[in-house]
């Protein structure tokens, strides 16, 4: 069939997805935006109150704290996850024995759900800290590093797979040529491999960055914000505002809108920045 013959069927193929997209994305987004300007108890009885929710939001010190805590967490976890993920990918493309086994093992944590992981790691951390008469929720610093370790454990395998795909796609003749020219291992890595896997880096930073910002399950299961909401990331803060505070549903909604804007803007900036560094063959 030619393109022309297919054209009449366009709605048949596109419409179901389009409708699903409207129901599952456009409508909730629009409703969410609208609700952020309202006071309400259930979503059906909203009364517009203008920008009040937004001004209340910034009066909430916990929100500001969650914002910084999340930003710091995102930076630390993006750097560590990508560093270790890339390092392991390099090791596992050297052709050492049992490469496939290692790849599988490293990838596996990614298959476990966030809530389960959170509880498992909580047990592990508390088991260790109990020797010092401490617990993971003793201070938000422990919670922070606990969360970083957890996320590293879960996501390193995932970015590793993407990096492996990228590294394997580096043409061997380029590396060979560099070697003939007398480049050292470090120079090959910095000037040949890294530029060539830039597309993978773009994707991996994108995935890890957005994941770290949106993190909810692991945070809920690991510390649930303890002590005193100080290890609370943004998503959990929004959730607790919406469900945990009578009369603050609108504020929670406003936080959610601001939150999605922040994540969107940061993700786009990051995409543009790393995209620029990509090279074409």
């Amino acid at each position: 069939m030619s393109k022309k013959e297919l054209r009449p069927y366009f709605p048949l193929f596109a419409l179901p997805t389009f409708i699903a997209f409207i129901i599952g994305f456009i409508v909730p987004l629009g409703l969410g935006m609208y609700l952020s300007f309202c006071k309400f108890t259930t979503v059906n009885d909203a009364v517009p109150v203008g920008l009040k929710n937004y001004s209340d939001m910034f009066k909430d010190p916990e929100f500001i704290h969650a914002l910084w805590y999340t930003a710091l967490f995102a930076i630390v976890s993006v750097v560590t996850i990508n560093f270790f993920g890339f390092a392991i990918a390099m090791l596992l493309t050297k052709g050492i024995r049992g490469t496939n086994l290692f790849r599988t093992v490293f990838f596996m944590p990614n298959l476990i759900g966030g809530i389960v992981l959170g509880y498992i790691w909580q047990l592990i951390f508390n088991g260790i800290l109990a020797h010092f008469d401490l617990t993971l929720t003793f201070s938000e610093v422990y919670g922070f590093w606990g969360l970083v370790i957890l996320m590293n454990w879960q996501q390193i395998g995932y970015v590793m797979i993407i990096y492996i795909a990228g590294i394997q796609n580096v043409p061997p003749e380029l590396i060979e040529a560099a070697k003939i020219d007398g480049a050292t291992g470090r120079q090959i890595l910095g000037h040949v491999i890294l530029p060539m896997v830039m597309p993978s880096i773009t994707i991996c930073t994108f995935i890890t960055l957005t994941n770290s910002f949106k993190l909810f399950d692991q945070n809920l299961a690991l510390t649930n914000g303890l002590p005193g909401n100080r290890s609370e990331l943004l998503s959990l803060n929004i959730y607790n505002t919406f469900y945990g505070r009578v009369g603050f549903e609108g504020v929670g909604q406003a936080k959610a809108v601001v939150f999605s804007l922040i994540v969107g803007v940061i993700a786009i900036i990051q995409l543009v920045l790393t995209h620029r560094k990509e090279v074409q063959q």
Partner: protein
Amino acid sequence: MKNLKKGIALAMAASLSVCVFAGCESGGNTGSSASTGSTATTASASAGAEGGKVYYLNFKPEQADQWVALAKTYTDQTGVEVKVETAASGTYEEQLKSEMAKSGAPTLFQVNGPVELAAWTDYCYNLKETSLYQNLKSDDFALIKDDEVKGVAYVIETYGIIYNKTLLNKYFETDGAKAKSVDEINTFDKLKEVVEDIQAKKDDLGIKGAFTSAGMDSSSDWRFKTHLANLPIYYEYKADGIDSTAAIKGSYLDNYRAIWDLYINNATCEPSMLSAKTGEDAAADFGLGEAIFYQNGTWEYQNCIDAGLTDEELGMLPIYIGAEGEENQGLCTGSENYWCVNSKSSEADIQATLDFLNWVITSDEGRTAMATDMGFVTPFKTFDEDAKYQANNALIKAADEYIANGKTAVKWNFSTIPSETWKNNVGAALLDYAQNGQTDEAWEGVKKAFVDGWKTEYDAAHSGEAAAEEAPAEEAAEEAGAESMAVDENAAQ
């Protein structure tokens, strides 16, 4: 390279869509995980003549099965469909919010006091003309706002310091015991002497500590940030002759500190371990006989029995904090479970719901189920008609004894706490204090959360009300003496 890009683009699209679906799923999970823990029953019998239906969103998971059974009995007798859903522990407010937004919303739901009522007041049917309200023993058990009866309490509960009689008697027989019988413990000073002596002799007594762990995990922290905090609030109100306040002074905070110190320094664990200790940990300490004292309430009875304790072993002491006249202080008694009928339901559904409630509190089946199967002490006159409608619960009997001996029950003034956030902040400050060497400086944090936080939260709650008429109305409800409060935590019961 082009292929790689294509592949990557595909992978990205796939991972994005996974994120989207995962998002959907976790969003939906709130509801569905709640309903996994919940038991839904929809009797398939044809609906009654008027076509009204009842949908009860129950707050207490412990009684989920009993409600379902009771609903089935009613359906078998009358043909009216009664659906009972129970929110999983700690998720009631979430489930209520999402259920109320649906068509086929609950016709019968619960609020836990005046503060939560403020959020749901537009959904509450005026129960004034109903048999439910007319059978109530006193207006103390109703939420009244603008002369409208918005909610009716259906269970009265009591809390204090539960103790293990066997172990305590064992202590009384030791050399140099600071008391010889539990009757001697009627002030804070005496309690402190006994507790500290028990702690010193814990190895001889074969226990790990005098008190169970004062866990500050969310499954347990309500015992201290809400229930224990009630005592300084109660005594301050009493001294000032008020029922609620916009700004608390914290005149009894030193007493609060004294009792908190006693709890955490004489427990089964170090204060630095508190943040991760859960309600189950404390229940286990008590159930296994590793601690003698356990601050909790009548709802904990069944758990104690399940853990192997017997009626004869269980007793309850008032929480003494060293306030004047506390020799005559009884246990803390009140309610935080109010039935509300959804005014936005159809008239037939409202009528069906009222008929169902009337049946629950007047029929033999209904009263037996509530008193015996669920173990509730109810505030309805109809339950006084026969002794068999009295709950069989050793802790409730202990509470009744204090009343019979002329002690004054402590009101549940925590119903006037301005918000959940206040409690959370006080809880966090209490934990900080416990973890940081219990210094005066750390206590300042508790004072700040208690006193300044009260004002901030009160103002926020009252300016937050867009509709100006809501504020005075809420005070009216508080004045009505409704004694209860938002304790999501009751989930833990």
